[in-house]
């Protein structure tokens, strides 16, 4: 699969454990898409601010990425989405406000299994479908006033457990409620989510034990709700600076350096360089072990992204990640799965 295939969908979800790089991958994908002329809407859930901050950094960059003006941002809040919806179908706003503020209503929302989550997904569905949403009451409510509809919606989903809860909801709600708004809403959302030509889930992981375990759970969880993941991105992969054989020889040579040799000597610098190479090779080995576990667990394309050493991880690094991502998908799209990792460089 090429990156163009991935970006040709309507809706992408970026899911993964906390801190692995979901926001980085979301932005990198979005920048790739706008560079290709698409209009892209990126979404995160209310309360998370990482995506908004990352986008601000890109907007303020001295040399902004091409096509940034085609990129828009939205924060989705399930509870508010539900209220918006109710205000549309029960147009007595002032009174509804009183109800929304009441404790009973809070219980109602808490009690209805996954109603908030479903509404959040519903809102995302609506955004992904704006092109042909004239018939939808929300279109009339001024939701679609902010310019032309997006070609692609990318959701920077919350960390694992929560993401699956959102994605599971349409199915659960569809089964739980035989009639009514929830049933209809769930049905519409499901038909979009289940269509692999329109929706794709991009799973992001890092190649260490605990995060990889969690990723395997995500893959199983997605399968359990009938969603195929479109790609697996393994982020922050270290690369050995030299071969094991070379490292052995270097290590032996380093051992011959007398501990009493002058502190300022090149020999001591050499020893430090070898030690650092050993550590990096160590991480590369650990990463390789878990990359193998992850690869064995999926049939989707796997793209490895390098660990980028830099003073500050910012827009420039995200763009570099985007370039690598493109290369990983492109270089092997004809034949096998994309993979491989280049060396991260200091900025």
């Amino acid at each position, binding site marked *: 699969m090429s990156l163009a295939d991935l970006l040709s969908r309507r809706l992408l979800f970026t899911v993964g454990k*906390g*801190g692995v790089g979901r926001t980085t991958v979301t932005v990198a994908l979005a920048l790739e898409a706008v560079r290709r002329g698409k209009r892209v809407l990126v979404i995160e859930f209310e*309360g*998370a*601010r990482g995506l908004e901050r990352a986008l601000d950094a890109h907007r303020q960059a001295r040399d902004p990425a091409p096509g940034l003006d085609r990129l828009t941002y939205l924060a989705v809040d399930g509870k508010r989405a539900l209220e918006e919806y*109710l205000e549309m179908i*029960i147009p*007595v706003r002032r*009174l509804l406000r009183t*109800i929304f503020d009441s*404790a*009973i*209503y809070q*219980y*109602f929302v*808490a*009690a*209805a299994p*996954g*109603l908030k989550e479903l509404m959040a997904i519903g809102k995302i569905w609506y955004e992904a479908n704006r092109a042909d949403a004239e018939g939808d009451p929300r279109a009339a409510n001024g939701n679609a006033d902010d310019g032309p509809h997006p070609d692609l919606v990318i959701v920077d989903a919350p*960390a694992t457990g929560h993401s699956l809860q959102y994605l599971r909801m349409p199915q659960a709600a569809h089964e739980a*409620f035989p*009639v*009514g708004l*929830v*049933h209809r809403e769930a049905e519409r959302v499901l038909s979009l989510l289940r269509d692999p030509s329109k929706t794709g889930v991009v799973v992001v992981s890092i190649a260490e*034990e*605990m*995060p990889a375990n969690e990723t395997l759970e995500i893959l199983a969880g997605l399968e359990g709700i009938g969603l195929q993941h479109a790609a697996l991105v393994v982020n922050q992969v270290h690369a050995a*600076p*030299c071969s094991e054989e*070379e490292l052995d*020889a*270097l290590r*032996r*040579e*380093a051992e011959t*350096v007398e501990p009493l040799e002058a*502190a*300022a000597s*090149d020999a*001591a*610098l*050499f*020893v*430090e*360089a070898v*030690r*650092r190479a050993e*550590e*990096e090779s*160590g991480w590369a080995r650990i990463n390789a072990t878990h990359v193998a576990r992850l690869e064995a667990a999926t049939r989707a394309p796997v793209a490895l992204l390098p660990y980028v*050493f*830099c*003073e*500050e991880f910012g827009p420039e690094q995200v763009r570099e990640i985007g370039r690598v991502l493109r290369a990983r998908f492109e270089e092997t799209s004809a034949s096998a799965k994309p993979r491989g990792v280049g*060396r*991260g*460089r*200091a900025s």
Partner: protein
Amino acid sequence: MRAAVSKSTREAAVVRSRGTRDLGDVLSRHRIVVCAGSGGVGKTTTAASVALWGALHGRRAIVLTIDPARRLADSLGVGPIGNTPIEVPASALAGLGVGKGGTLTAMMLDQKGSWDELVARHAPSEEVRESILANPFYRQLSQSFAGSQEYMAVEQLGELDASGRYDLIVVDTPPTQHALDFLEAPDRLLHFLDRKIVRWFVRPSMSAGWSTFQTMNRTVRFLLGKIEDATGVAALAQVSDFFSAMGQLFDGFEARVDRVTALLRDPATAFLLVAGPDEQVLGQVDYLASQMAERRMPLKGVVMNRVHAPLDIDESAPEEIASAIEPHVDRAIGAKGRGEASVAGKVARRLAENLAAWQGRARGDALRIEVFRQGLPRGVPLVQVPDLPRDVHDLEGLRSLHAFLFGAVD
């Protein structure tokens, strides 16, 4: 120029850069230590290491751990089934030099089972228990109510503390979006289980639905009914059933939440923030610290984990480093070279780039940590643990962290 390096290792450099105070002070003055922080930063590892330090210093220590890595669970001897305290055998600790009277116990908090257990423990009868466990609202609540897992951790903490068997309780916390989430859990739950509202629901007639709200404005009643119709969610009957069944259970609940909150506010309880040097939380430290102080759960220490510590070498460009080390690289691999003179040169350059890359990242970490430190309230120690290229999950590994957490002790 010559690029210079001292013989000291990077790890020693971290110890030196540490502030004058360390966590040893904090531990000696507190009975309960809570390790909070966002996902994957090293809370579980830190908590285990801190508890081990206590045991080594003669404390009867227990670590309440959540979802540890497999090898960590193995080292501590806790299995996948949680909620039973298991003491680490004295023989396993012997080699580490545990002080007089010191013990280490571990307990794995089973998050999923906790609510069910709570219900089982407090339900007045088998029948009530079954009806609660089968209630859809309960199932939803116990799985997804924000903060319920955190709350259960605090419940367990209360039980352990009341047992009087431990004089150091180290609490690991579930991954949260925000470091404050954990602290807010009891309050949120208390609010949710507000007595007045609960009592309102606990009326036999309630199961019939909204129409029984005689006291309510007719229009409001109409609208609520409409919401139910529109959504297809007949939620009220479930909520009512739930609270009816839980009624007796909640009788003692408020008092317990109060007790648990008091425990978190006890002067003997210390909060440690575990953070990574590239996290967003670093930018919000004043906010965090002031929020914690406001809740009377003050921040007592910060563990900056997986830090890339600067190497003790002069600033030099990769090319300079490469040419400085090339003769040595040549000596190491030149002889077996694949007939190509440039092999050593290439390897030297990659080694040099690798070294410089690390140094760049380390500079950034040091800068971010320094800015963070400026925002920390006075007297809150900040310790740094390097990103170790080795497994820290056995007892020996956990102890190796003490040099960074507590200075070069034991």
